[in-house]
């Protein structure tokens, strides 16, 4: 279950954001990611685990390696945001319907 909080936590760490940005460029294995970052391979693995738990990346086995790519469920974070956005917007809409139109706004 991807939660909004997990997504936010995952994005909160600058190194983790770098990992995510690299994965977003193209699917790649841990070793390749570690080679491009100033942190150890185990650290990259740890960041990938957090990103995976947050639903931002997903991994598939390719031969002996695990290749990481962006997870379409990353959309879950944006969905959480829009969920709240529409709650507020539709409440404002309902209030507008129930107010009298100003004379100049009458059709």
């Amino acid at each position, binding site marked *: 279950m991807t939660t909004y909080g997990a997504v936010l936590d995952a994005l909160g760490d600058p190194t983790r954001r770098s990992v995510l940005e690299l994965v977003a460029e193209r699917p790649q294995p841990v070793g390749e990611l570690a080679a491009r970052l100033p942190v150890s391979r185990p650290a990259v693995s740890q960041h990938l685990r957090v990103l995976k738990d947050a639903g931002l990346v997903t991994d598939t086995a390719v031969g002996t390696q695990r290749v990481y790519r962006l997870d*379409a*469920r990353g*959309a879950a974070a944006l969905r*959480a*945001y829009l*969920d709240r956005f529409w709650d*507020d917007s*539709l409440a404002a809409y309902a209030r507008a*319907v129930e107010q009298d139109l100003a004379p100049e706004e009458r059709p």
Partner: protein
Amino acid sequence: MSTDPIVRTLTVAAPPERAFEVFTAGMARWWNGEYHLGDKPFVDVVVEPRAGGRWYERDAEGAECTWGRVLAWEPPGRLVLAWQISADWTYDPELVTQIEVRFAGATGPDGAATTRVDFEHRGLDAYGEQAAEMRASLGSPGGWGGLLEAFADKAGG
């Protein structure tokens, strides 16, 4: 893998004709003015009253920013809009999510006309597919991350 649509149902104290009109012609009256695409706040939000019409905001100097387009225009019962605003709050012609709103007339307990409004924002997987754009917006304060932080502040406040 698919992202659930955002679904809301509400009842408003007006007949469907008015509910439809306020949703479309009166959008600038209820849309939170903080959410604008242009450099300046909008003075109007226009939903052109026909299928294929544009959906855009206009600022005080007449500058327009497109939000999307009208996919179905069936007053007073149904409206479908293409929402083409990306995660970093800019118009993206490649991105298409759909907003469908249905307006059904009913009678309230006091006999007054009401409208049941069924709202759905779907096709949200399109955001997940925007890998390049997501990457671009992750680092910027006004981007996805910034949007999420602003949201978290609001949700927590």
